[in-house]
């Protein structure tokens, strides 16, 4: 069975399918809470929620949403309070789970997501007073553990950019060389970029893709340097970037016209795919609508691990689309949901 977890501004929906073409939708789970982060790992679901009255929370289900258990809160040790969980990332070790949160910080769990501890090395980084907040808040929104070396973790935050640790989180260094910050006097600072999302392939972890606040980049050296791959796209603005589950050179992007015009160009809903690491791009539109005057947020696009790969995205207008053939054709999974904040897919 294929499962697609859809986190929205007002709850979680779970879609299931035998063939990834016809989907059954179940929800809302946790109605009236923002579901801003989802980890979906076999039958284990871990979600970060935030209620406008009662604050953030962390919930887990071991039976695909039939029952839920509220986990211990993610607490800052002092002088800060958790506002929202932006990212939940499982690792090769089922006990190790990371949470990227607002305000910008990283937490780590060593018991499968039951209790989390602040990664002090990043929180105490001397750059932290200079990390800024975008419209969505200041957050670590991306966590990419190295698939083969648990001491290496890459995170991205808005604003601040990409940071890496090579020693298990004790020390962190910025990794933004080549990434532009057009809104700063120095367009290529050491840090301070508004990186929207980064993606890496587990089989080739030094290859990464980055969607910036204007700019789409590739790194082939683990983030030492970044090079633009935006030339073949209709726009270099957007939020989501996703790498194919089996082919590191295949990458997906959902371009929006510009910072000041956050719609797909011409209102034409289109996922763009590159099969050569971003050198060239193809618009994928079969089954996708015109007059799509909405946007796709940074975690609202994902792939599954099936063969051929499934690709999924949801919009701020509450529509969710799925492709069972690597993006060639698309079907609508859901309409009229609240704003889609994140999607995650798995075969269970």
């Amino acid at each position: 069975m294929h499962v697609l977890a859809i986190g929205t501004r007002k709850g979680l929906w779970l879609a299931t399918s035998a063939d990834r073409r016809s989907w059954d939708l179940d929800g809302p789970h946790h109605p009236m809470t923002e579901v801003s982060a989802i980890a979906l790992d076999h039958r284990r679901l871990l979600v970060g929620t935030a209620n406008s009255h009662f604050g953030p929370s962390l919930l887990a289900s071991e039976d695909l949403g039939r029952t839920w258990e509220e986990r211990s809160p993610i607490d800052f040790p002092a002088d800060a309070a958790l506002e929202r969980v932006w990212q939940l990332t499982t690792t090769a070790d089922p006990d190790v789970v990371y949470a990227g949160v607002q305000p910008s910080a990283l937490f780590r769990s060593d018991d499968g997501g039951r209790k989390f501890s602040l990664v002090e090395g990043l929180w105490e980084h001397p750059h932290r007073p200079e990390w800024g907040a975008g419209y969505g808040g200041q957050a670590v929104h991306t966590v990419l553990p190295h698939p083969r070396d648990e001491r290496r973790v890459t995170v991205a935050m808005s604003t601040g950019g990409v940071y890496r640790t090579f020693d298990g989180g004790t020390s962190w260094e910025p990794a933004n060389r080549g990434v532009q910050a057009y809104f700063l006097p120095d367009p290529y600072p050491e840090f301070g970029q508004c990186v929207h999302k980064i993606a890496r392939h587990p089989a080739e972890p030094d290859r990464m893709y980055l969607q910036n606040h204007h700019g789409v980049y590739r790194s082939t050296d683990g983030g030492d340097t970044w090079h633009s791959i935006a030339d073949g796209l209709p726009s270099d603005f957007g939020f989501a970037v996703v790498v194919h589950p089996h082919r590191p050179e295949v990458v997906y992007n959902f371009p929006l016209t510009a910072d000041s015009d956050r719609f797909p160009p011409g209102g034409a809903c289109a996922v763009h795919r590159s099969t050569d690491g971003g050198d060239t791009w193809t618009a994928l539109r079969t089954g996708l609508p015109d007059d799509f005057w909405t946007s796709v947020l940074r975690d609202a696009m994902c792939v599954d691990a099936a063969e051929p790969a499934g690709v999924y995205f949801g919009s701020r207008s509450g529509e969710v689309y799925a492709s069972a053939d690597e993006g060639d054709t698309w079907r609508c999974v859901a309409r009229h949901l609240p704003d889609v904040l994140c999607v995650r897919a798995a075969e269970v």
Partner: protein
Amino acid sequence: MRVVVLVPGVLRSAAGGRAVVDLDLAEPATLGTALDALTASWPLLDRRLRDERGVLRRYVNFYVDGEECRRLAGVDTRLEPGAEIRVLPSVAGG
């Protein structure tokens, strides 16, 4: 001394289904010590009502004997024996 907390419907599942919780507090008691006692019994209520610094959630109101605590002394508002703490979500959300 005894005080009573009135729990709104939306939070009762985190309080074992109770609409009313009686607390036995040492004197002098404040709203903050009452919340400490309440959430010691019902830990899921804690982050619903205040963050990890103890700051009250912005859109949750706490009426102490009919007066919202932010017009009094906030979490330091002194409680009289028999005080009633009524927890009410404020108007918020979209």
